[in-house]
């Protein structure tokens, strides 16, 4: 073990040493909702400080897989996860792992902007407060709002309700709220699906700016969005189970975004990215 150590430290950024900059390693992941086998046998590796996009038709399990990364599926009584999801080498589903501690490191932005019915300030301060942060939060609030590109728009009305903001502003507030706890990873579940093209563009620019600090995984229905922002893309599809007739999500192909869109290895990927189905 220790003998291989020098090799890792000399060149940590390349793929030459597998695992050195892997944030998540997923191995044989299966997800069930009661009797429904929703996701089957997913293997993939998420690299540090990259944007990874999950694309695929509805019901292909991409959001379900995303929600395994911060144990959000725990909130659904009937959900069951099999296989391993390693986060920097630690099995996230180990009995000793507290989902609350996981979610403090792995933040999430949801499909519909879901600001709390509180002031803009209190929305951003919520995470640090429940995380036990005592004392002055002004600095954290300002920095988070600046990082989310929202500071100049809201600095004079931090005490006003977040519900009075536009949809795009609300979603950027949710991003600010997520990064206020200084997470390692940001999971984004179709963050632009409720937004207009201009607000979408703003969020995409924001993602590119903050990816130097965060590992980002984004689920999107919008192939152009995946092509624009992501470094690597995973294409999922849904298969109909012959016996039950239920849809089961599968990972078809996972590669550099350029390859997925210009030179896909699987004909189903090609059919999807060229718009022939989905």
């Amino acid at each position, binding site marked *: 073990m220790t003998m291989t150590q020098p090799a890792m430290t000399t060149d940590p950024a390349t793929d030459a040493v597998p695992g050195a900059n892997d944030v998540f390693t997923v191995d044989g992941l299966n997800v069930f909702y009661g009797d429904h086998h929703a996701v089957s046998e997913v293997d993939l590796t998420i690299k540090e400080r990259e944007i990874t996009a999950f694309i695929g038709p509805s019901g292909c399990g991409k959001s379900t897989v995303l929600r395994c990364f*911060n144990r*959000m599926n725990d*909130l659904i*009584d009937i959900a069951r996860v099999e296989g391993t999801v390693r986060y920097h080498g630690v099995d996230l589903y180990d009995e000793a792992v507290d989902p*609350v*501690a996981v*979610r*403090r490191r792995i*933040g*999430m932005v*949801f499909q*519909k902007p*879901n*600001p*709390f*019915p*509180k002031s803009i300030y209190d929305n951003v301060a*919520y*995470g640090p407060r*429940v*995380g036990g942060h005592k004392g002055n939060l002004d600095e954290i609030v300002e920095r988070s709002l600046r990082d989310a590109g929202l500071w100049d728009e809201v600095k004079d009305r931090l005490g006003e*309700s*977040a*519900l*009075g903001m536009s949809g795009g502003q609300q979603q950027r507030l*949710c991003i600010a*709220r*997520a990064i206020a*706890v200084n997470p390692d990873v940001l999971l984004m579940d179709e963050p632009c699906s409720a937004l207009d093209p201009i607000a979408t563009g703003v969020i995409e620019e924001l993602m590119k700016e903050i990816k130097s600090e965060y590992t980002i995984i984004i689920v999107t229905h919008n192939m152009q969005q995946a092509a624009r922002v992501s470094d690597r893309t995973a294409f999922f599809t849904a298969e109909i189970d012959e016996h039950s007739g239920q849809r089961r999500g599968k990972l078809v192909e996972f590669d550099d975004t350029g390859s997925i869109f210009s030179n896909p290895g699987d004909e189903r990927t090609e059919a999807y990215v060229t718009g022939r189905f989905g």
Partner: protein
Amino acid sequence: MHERQTVSLDTLRARRGDDAAGHVFFVLITSAVGLAFFMVGAVGVDVVVEAWDILTERLWDFLGSPSSADEAKSGVSQGIRGSILIAAIVILTFPVGIGAAVYLEEYADDTWLSRLIQVTVRNLAGVPSIVYGLLGLAVFVKGLDGLTGGRSVIAAGLAVAVLVLPVIIITAGEALRAVPTPLREGAYGLGATQWEVIRTQVLPAALPGILTGTVLGIARALGEAAPLLVIGAVGFYTTGNQDFFEQLRGAFTALPMNIANYARLPAETWRGHAAAASVVLLILVFLINLVAIVVRARISKRLGR
């Protein structure tokens, strides 16, 4: 194939009889509303007219005097006091009901046992109030007489509280269930624990709905006469020089009992007393509810809705 249509204003006009059933239905529901208003108005006017003499001639004396055999002196001070004490005891038990609702909705697993409890709570809300009177007689008057002092306002308050609890649990449970999932997920996603999510997001968002339930509960608690009858509210009593705590464990009455007692006296001259006591009860219910409604409005406004 498909001919070009000619359109004039007449073709776009509503046709006679197009929505006859809708119009009939509208008339029916409007008359139902009208009838309801008429009934409430008729009762209100009738009661106020009957009570007019007492309310205008000796309002403060009526509010401040105990029951008496003397028409000119008899009042409802003991009833007001009893009703307010009963309402206070009921309000003190609201956290129990809200806590039960939080447990059932947020913590309990969806098992046959928790479903059985849910169904039972719903059924309890429909149990006639006199049955709760019997329960109160057995448990609070006889069983716990060391605490309640027997046929006391404490026993009555607890019996009425048990009667109101199912209503509180059901309405609070519905308010909790109505809290949107994205709100919970947003808080969980930031690393909040279950209790933090409940305390900082779920309960504040559900509070307006919970308060609606408490308004209904208080109104019901104040209006109940049947359980008090079984527990043993009395028409006339004297407190002598008992202190507050002795009085809590002593003889009591309440406004619904005042009304019943005045109304069943044979002499026509007591009708005004019954009516005036009814007006006092209605105003008391209204005042307590007003507080809850103001609180609810303020919370809703703070939540930005």
